[in-house]
C-alpha cells in the first residue's frame, strides 16, 4: 500500500489537545497515560489514545486478573490449544478436536437485552469458527435479579429472545445452560454464552500472522458506528446513567454471520489462510494488533479500503467500531482472487485493507494521511499488570443445625413442593423451548438433563457439555465455591457416562479495585485451580468480566464453568429420569445434612444469613466420578442424577418428572438428610441391586439403598405421599406463570 502514500506523509496528525479529561473519558488512569506517552515517545493523538485505551481496557488486557489466571492448570495430554487463542482446543480422538469457549456480554445485555444477548452469542460463535471449527452446540449461563424486581421480567424476555434470535438463525442448536435469580444481579445481570465446535486436529486455524508483505483482508459486514468503546464500557462500573450508553451496544445480524460462517468454512477447506482473527471487542484495532503481535510482525492498514456502512466515518471510529460479523485474515500472497470469489458468492464484503510489515509497529493511513503509528508490543502486552491488594474473605458462620428429629409429613411435603416451584429449581422449559435445540440432527440429550449430549456427526462419539457455578457458595466461601463449580461440571458430565476433559470459564466479579472483591477473585481461582488439578480437568479458554457493579453494589462472585467431556459410545449414555418401575435406587456418597447456603435455607427457612457452604473432597469427587462412569460403561445403571441444589429429595423428585414414574423410599429421615447439599453425591438407579452394592464395596465406596422406582407418587416410609403429577405441575408452572404476570 506504500504507493498510496505521499512522501510528505511522515508526521502523525495531532489536531486535538489531549487533556486529562479526555484521558479520563477513555478510561485510562493518569499513571497509565504516562506509560502510553513513554511507549510512544511522544504525546499520542486522539486516534492513538483511543486505540491504547481499548487495548489497555480491563476487558482486552486482563490487567487485574492476569497474575492470577497464570496460576490455573492449562495443560494435559488432551489439550491441543490452551488459553490465549480465540478458543481452546482439545483432542477427542480419531483426528477430531473440540473447540470451545465461554464469554460474557453482561453490560450490553442489561442496557439492551435483545441485542446484548444476541451479539454475545454471535461473538462466541465467531471465536469458535475462527479456529476452523463448525459450531455444533451453544450453551448459556444467565443470572437475573430478584423475580420481584420490576426489570427482571423484561430482561428475561429480552435476553431469551436475543439468544434464540441469533442461535436459531445460525442453525446451531442451543442445548442447555443454567439460570439463577438473585437480588445481587438486580442492576447487573450476567449473560454468559458458550459455544462448542468440531474441527479436524490438522485443520485448526490460529491468529499469529506471518509473511512480510502478505495481504491483510477484511471480510464480512460493513463497519458502522455501533459499539464504539464497548470494551471500555465493559470495564467500568454501572450507575443510574448507564442506560444512556445504549448507543455503545452493537446490533447483531445473524443472517450475515451465517453467511460468514459458511464462507469461512469454504475458504478454510483450501490452504489460502495464514492467520485469521474475528473482530470482536475493540474491533479492527484488537484483531490487527493481536494478529501482528502474535506473529511478531508489523501491520500497515489503509482505512480508505474498509467497507463502511455510514459516510464520513473518522479513522478513530473505524478503528474502534464493534460492528458485528466481521473477520480479519492474512492470506498467502496471490490467493486473494479465489478468496474474494468465495466471499462475493456468499454476498459478503471482501477488501484488502493492509499488509504485514517487518516494523513491529501498527501504522494506519486514512484519506492520504498517516493517522496512527504505534509500537505493537506495548499495545498488546504493555498494559500495566496490577497486583491489586486483596483481603481474604472472612470465614462464614458454621452451617445451621436443624433439629435432627424426623420432621412431620407436612413439613417434608411442603418443603419439597416449595423447592420444586422456587425460582432456582423450577423448570426452564419456557426459556429453552424458545431455542432451537435440535437443528443439525445430532442433539442426543438437549436441555433439562445433567449435561447435554451432542453427537460427533457420523460417529459413535458424543460430547457432554455442562455449565455450572453456585454463586452463593462462592460468596460465602470463595475457595470452596470455586472448587464446587468445577466439581459440579465434572459431576454433571460424569452422570451421563462421559469422561470430563477440559473446561472454559467466564469469571464474573465486581470491582477489582476493592480489596474484598479482589479477595473473592483470588480465592475463587484458588479453589478452581485446585479442582482442575485434582480432577485432570484443565482450563483451555476463558473470559474475565470485572466491574459488575451498580451504584457500588457488587454481584456475588460468579465464576461460571463450562465443562466438556467425551463418551466414546453414546448408546451407553444414561439420562437423569427414571426409565421403568421396580428398579433399585441408591445414593452414592455420604449424606450428612449440610444445610448452610442451601436452597432449603433460602426458600424454606427463609434465612439470608451467610453460612458456610458444603465443602468438596476432591479426592472423593474423582473416585465417585470414575465409579459412576464405570457403572454406566458396564450397563449396570439405567439412570444417574447428580445431587446438587435442593439436595437428595429434590434430585429424586426431578428423576420422577420426565417419564412420570414415581418412587417408594423406604425410610424416614431428617430434613437435613432430604435437603442438605453435601457434595460429590449421585443417585444411581439399576435393576440389579446386588451388583451395584458389590461394585461399590469393591471400590471401597459407600452407597446407601433408598428404595424402588414405580407408581404415580413419591412416597417415604409409606407415610408421606406426594403425587408426581402435582410435583410436575408445580415444577412446570412457576416460570410461565411468572412471565405471564404484568
Amino acid at each position, binding site marked *: 500500500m506504500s504507493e498510496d502514500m505521499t512522501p510528505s506523509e511522515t508526521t502523525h496528525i495531532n489536531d486535538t489537545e489531549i487533556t486529562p479529561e479526555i484521558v479520563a473519558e477513555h478510561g485510562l488512569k493518569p499513571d497509565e497515560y504516562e506509560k502510553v506517552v513513554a511507549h510512544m515517545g511522544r504525546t499520542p493523538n486522539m486516534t492513538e489514545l483511543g486505540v491504547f485505551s481499548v487495548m489497555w481496557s480491563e476487558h482486552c488486557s486482563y490487567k487485574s486478573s492476569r497474575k492470577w489466571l497464570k496460576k490455573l492448570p492449562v495443560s494435559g495430554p488432551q489439550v491441543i490449544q490452551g488459553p490465549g487463542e480465540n478458543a481452546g482446543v482439545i483432542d477427542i480422538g480419531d483426528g477430531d478436536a473440540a473447540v470451545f469457549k465461554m464469554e460474557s456480554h453482561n453490560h450490553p445485555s442489561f442496557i439492551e437485552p435483545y441485542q446484548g444477548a444476541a451479539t454475545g452469542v454471535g461473538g462466541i460463535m465467531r471465536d469458535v469458527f475462527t479456529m476452523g471449527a463448525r459450531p455444533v452446540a451453544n450453551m448459556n449461563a444467565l443470572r437475573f435479579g430478584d423475580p420481584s424486581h420490576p426489570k427482571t421480567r423484561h430482561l428475561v424476555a429480552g435476553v431469551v*429472545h436475543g439468544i*434464540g*434470535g441469533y442461535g*436459531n*438463525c*445460525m*442453525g446451531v442448536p442451543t442445548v442447555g445452560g443454567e439460570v439463577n435469580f438473585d437480588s445481587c444481579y438486580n442492576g447487573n445481570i450476567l449473560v454468559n454464552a458458550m459455544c462448542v465446535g468440531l474441527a479436524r486436529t490438522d485443520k485448526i486455524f490460529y491468529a499469529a500472522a506471518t509473511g512480510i508483505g502478505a495481504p491483510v483482508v477484511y471480510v464480512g459486514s460493513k463497519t458502522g458506528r455501533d459499539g464504539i468503546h464497548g470494551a471500555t464500557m465493559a470495564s467500568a462500573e454501572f450507575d443510574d446513567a448507564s442506560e444512556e450508553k445504549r448507543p455503545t451496544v452493537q446490533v447483531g*445480524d*445473524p*443472517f*450475515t454471520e*451465517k*453467511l460468514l460462517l*459458511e464462507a469461512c468454512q469454504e475458504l478454510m477447506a483450501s490452504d489460502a489462510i495464514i492467520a485469521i482473527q474475528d473482530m470482536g471487542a475493540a474491533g479492527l484495532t484488537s484483531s490487527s494488533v493481536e494478529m501482528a503481535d502474535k506473529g511478531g510482525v508489523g501491520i500497515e492498514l489503509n482505512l480508505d479500503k474498509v467497507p463502511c456502512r455510514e459516510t464520513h466515518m473518522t479513522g478513530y471510529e473505524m478503528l474502534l467500531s464493534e460492528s458485528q460479523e466481521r473477520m480479519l485474515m492474512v492470506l498467502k500472497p496471490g490467493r486473494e482472487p479465489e478468496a474474494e470469489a468465495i466471499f462475493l458468492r*456468499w*454476498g459478503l464484503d471482501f477488501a484488502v485493507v493492509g499488509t504485514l510489515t517487518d516494523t513491529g509497529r501498527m501504522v494506519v493511513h486514512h484519506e492520504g494521511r498517516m493517522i496512527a503509528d504505534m509500537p505493537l508490543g506495548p499495545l498488546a502486552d504493555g498494559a500495566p499488570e496490577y497486583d491489586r491488594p486483596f483481603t481474604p474473605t472472612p470465614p462464614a458462620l458454621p452451617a445451621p443445625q436443624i433439629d435432627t428429629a424426623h420432621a412431620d409429613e407436612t413439613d417434608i411435603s411442603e418443603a419439597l413442593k416449595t423447592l420444586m416451584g422456587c425460582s432456582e429449581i423450577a423448570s426452564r422449559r419456557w426459556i*429453552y*423451548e*424458545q*431455542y*432451537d*435445540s*435440535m*437443528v*443439525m*440432527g445430532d*442433539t*442426543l440429550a438437549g436441555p433439562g438433563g445433567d449435561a447435554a449430549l451432542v*453427537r460427533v456427526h457420523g460417529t459413535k462419539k458424543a460430547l457432554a457439555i455442562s455449565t455450572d457455578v453456585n454463586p452463593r457458595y462462592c460468596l460465602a466461601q470463595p475457595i470452596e465455591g470455586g472448587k464446587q463449580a468445577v466439581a459440579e461440571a465434572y459431576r454433571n458430565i460424569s452422570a451421563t457416562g462421559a469422561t470430563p476433559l477440559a473446561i472454559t470459564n467466564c469469571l464474573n466479579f465486581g470491582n477489582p479495585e476493592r480489596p474484598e472483591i479482589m479477595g473473592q477473585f483470588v480465592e475463587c481461582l484458588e479453589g478452581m485451580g485446585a479442582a482442575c488439578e485434582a480432577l485432570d480437568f484443565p482450563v483451555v479458554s476463558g473470559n474475565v468480566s470485572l466491574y459488575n457493579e451498580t451504584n457500588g453494589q457488587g454481584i456475588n462472585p460468579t465464576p461460571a464453568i463450562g465443562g466438556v467431556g467425551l463418551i466414546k459410545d*453414546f*448408546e451407553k449414555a444414561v439420562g437423569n429420569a427414571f426409565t421403568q418401575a421396580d428398579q433399585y435406587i441408591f445414593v452414592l456418597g455420604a449424606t450428612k445434612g449440610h444445610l448452610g447456603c442451601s436452597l432449603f435455607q433460602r426458600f424454606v427457612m427463609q434465612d439470608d444469613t451467610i453460612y458456610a457452604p458444603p465443602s468438596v473432597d476432591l479426592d472423593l469427587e474423582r473416585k465417585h466420578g470414575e465409579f459412576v462412569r464405570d457403572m454406566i460403561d458396564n450397563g449396570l445403571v439405567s439412570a444417574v442424577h447428580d445431587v446438587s441444589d435442593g439436595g437428595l429429595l429434590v434430585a429424586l423428585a426431578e428423576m420422577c418428572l420426565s417419564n412420570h414414574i414415581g418412587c417408594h423410599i423406604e425410610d424416614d429421615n431428617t430434613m437435613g438428610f432430604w435437603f442438605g447439599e453435601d457434595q460429590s453425591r449421585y443417585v444411581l438407579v439399576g435393576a440389579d441391586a446386588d451388583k451395584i452394592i458389590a461394585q461399590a464395596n469393591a471400590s471401597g465406596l459407600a452407597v446407601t439403598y433408598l428404595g424402588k422406582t414405580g407408581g404415580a407418587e413419591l412416597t417415604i416410609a409409606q407415610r408421606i405421599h406426594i403425587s408426581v403429577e402435582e410435583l410436575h405441575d408445580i415444577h412446570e408452572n412457576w416460570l410461565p406463570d411468572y412471565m405471564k404476570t404484568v
Partner: protein
Amino acid sequence: MQASVIVFPGSNCDRDVAVCLEAATGKKPNMVWHGDSDLPDSDVIVLPGGFSYGDYLRCGSMAANSPIMKEVVLKAQKGAAVLGICNGFQVLTECGLLPGVLMRNAALNFVCRNTHLVINNNSTPFTGQYQQGEEVVIPVAHNEGNYFADDATLDELAGEGRIVLSYAPDDNPNGACKNIAGICDASGRVLGMMPHPERRAETALGGEDGKRIFTGLVEALS
C-alpha cells in the same frame, strides 16, 4: 429416486434433510444453489428449514422470488414432488404453490419441541407409510408457523383431504387454524409442513416417526 435440496444462503436444515434423503435413497441428493437457474431432473425437490435470506422481511417472501424458485414451480407443474419443511413451507405459500400464509406464532415466541401429529391423509406420496389417523411425534422449531387462510380455503382444504397433517387437538404449538401442521396442493404432490421429519428419523434422536416421510417417498416415486 433422485432428490434435490434447494440451498438458500440462510438454509440451516439442508444438511440434516440430506442425511435422511441419502439414508432413504442410498444416494446423495443434489444440493442446488439458490442463485442457479438450472435444476437437475429430480423426482422430489426439498425446500429445507432455515432462514432463507434472513427472513427479516416476511418469511420466505424473498426466497419465493429467487432464480431457482422459477424452476421449482415449473418442475412442480410438470409433476415433480415438492416437500417444503418449515421455512420451505413458508416459501411454498409465498410462491403460490400452496394457499394461505404462516403468521407469527400466537404466543409471539419461537417454539422448539416435540408435537403430536395426526396423519389425516395417507394417500399422498409423502404419507403412504403411515396409517390413516395414526398419531405420531415429530418436533417443530419455528417463530412463524401459525397457518391462516380464509374460511373458503380452509373448507376446500378440509373437504379435499388436503390437511395432510394436523396437530393433536390439545397440542397446537402456534395457534394454526384447524390445527394445521401440513397441507398439500390439489395434485397431492406438493406438501408443506411445519414439523421437521428429518429431526426424528433415527432412534438415537428420540424416535423414527419422521423417517417414513422419506422412505415413503422412495416407495411411491421409485
